[in-house]
């Protein structure tokens, strides 16, 4: 089972190839990038996100060389994600080895190994028949979780929130699970409560863009609602985290995107109502049952 979303960004020679996630599921198209400016454009336009933006960051550093400049400009473009942390990791390892490309390849390999390890750890916590509610897209990690569950003799079905306004749930997660022949259903974001009440789901799994050492997380808008509802219905809520920092979660800047993006995928009009678009929300520790950390050699 492989999803192009497991590795949505690749480095080949002196070009970065970015899977245009905004074209999925209609078209599997890659955008060629070979400058910092080009990388910032695809990042700002949400052509890639989540694990893709991690890969894009590392590969841009390989081409552009100036790690600090890449980190500061990436942060300006997507302010919620912790690019400084990635820069620190890269600089730490770059000191030991001269070839940045080799360092990046090693980190990416290690990262992938740890994602699989993390999936196995989480699968061990899930029930024998896991009906998993999820949001947005975890770049192939749900496939790893399904594989791990199968190896343990467990079964699973995924219930994916469509994740308005960008529809990452429908366009990415449903698409990648369905093409891997994994049982999956799609729901409107507001159907989460009724599914929980009816007992259709028995656990929730989400990713996180940021987390702190207290256990609070920041993730795709809609995550907090799932967490507080899950708590009410006594359903375990699991967060996949990386690089938790010693920071107050409220200090992190929640990105607010352009109003017009709220109306994505709806017919074009001359005017739209005024709108808000916080891209992420905060889920405090008290609503989270367990945190599955990614830890590996480069974290030591």
């Amino acid at each position, binding site marked *: 089972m492989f999803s192009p979303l497991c590795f949505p960004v690749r480095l080949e020679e002196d070009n970065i190839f970015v899977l245009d996630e905004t074209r999925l*599921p209609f078209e599997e198209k890659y955008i060629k990038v070979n400058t910092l400016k080009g990388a910032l454009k695809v990042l700002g336009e949400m052509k890639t996100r989540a694990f893709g933006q991690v890969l894009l960051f590392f590969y841009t550093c390989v081409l552009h060389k100036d790690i600090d400049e890449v980190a500061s400009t990436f942060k300006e473009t997507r302010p919620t994600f912790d690019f400084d942390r990635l820069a620190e990791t890269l600089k730490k390892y770059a000191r030991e080895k001269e070839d940045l490309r080799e360092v990046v390849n090693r980190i990416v390999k290690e990262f992938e190994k740890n994602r699989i390890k993390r999936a196995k750890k989480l699968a061990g916590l899930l029930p024998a028949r896991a009906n998993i509610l999820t949001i947005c897209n975890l770049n192939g990690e749900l496939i790893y979780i399904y594989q791990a569950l199968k190896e343990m003799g467990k079964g699973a079905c995924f219930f994916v929130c469509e994740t308005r306004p960008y529809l990452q749930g429908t366009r990415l997660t*449903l698409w990648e699970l369905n093409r891997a022949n994994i049982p999956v259903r799609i729901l409107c974001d*507001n159907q989460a409560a009724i599914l929980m009440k009816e007992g259709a789901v028995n656990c929730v799994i989400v990713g996180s863009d940021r987390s702190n050492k207290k256990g609070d997380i920041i993730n795709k808008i809609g995550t907090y609602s799932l967490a507080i509802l899950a708590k009410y219905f006594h359903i375990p809520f699991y967060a996949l985290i990386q690089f938790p920092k010693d920071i107050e979660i409220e200090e992190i800047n929640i990105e607010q995107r352009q109003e017009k993006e709220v109306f994505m995928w709806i017919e074009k009009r001359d005017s739209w109502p005024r709108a808000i678009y916080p891209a992420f929300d905060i889920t405090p520790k008290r609503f989270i049952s367990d945190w599955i950390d990614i830890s590996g050699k480069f974290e030591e």
Partner: protein
Amino acid sequence: MNLEEIKSLILIWGMISKEAIEQLKVEFLYHKGLYILVPEMRPYLLGLAVSKNLKNSRIRHIYATDNMLGYLFYKNKIKKTLFFYKEITPSGAVGICGSLYACLLSSLHNVPIKLLKGGIESNPLDKDASTINGNLFINDPGLAIEAKDELVPWEILK
């Protein structure tokens, strides 16, 4: 619009009635910083129809997708919820898809819910998460969970 610009919101869930629009016009005369929060109300995109009605009545409002409600409650922006129900039953009030989500989030944040009889909905293009505005986003529409009216129990509406 930036979230920091918004002080107080009244959340609308369901199809607003003409009577309620008249009441809101009066309320707006006395509360300058107030906005109506119009969620999208998937799958029907009912929010677009509600927004049009409010615009025609010159009532200030803000549009958001349904999954933004939780964060707005968390940020203490929503002060009241107006739940436009379809039917009252001995067990609770029945409303459109997502009514339990909106009312339970209100209740869990101690935001009062006012029950009002809903207006008449037009025939929506979308019946479930497989489409938006009639455009199909998945190969197999059968994978979408059917959107149904939802009962909100009285203990949540208290």
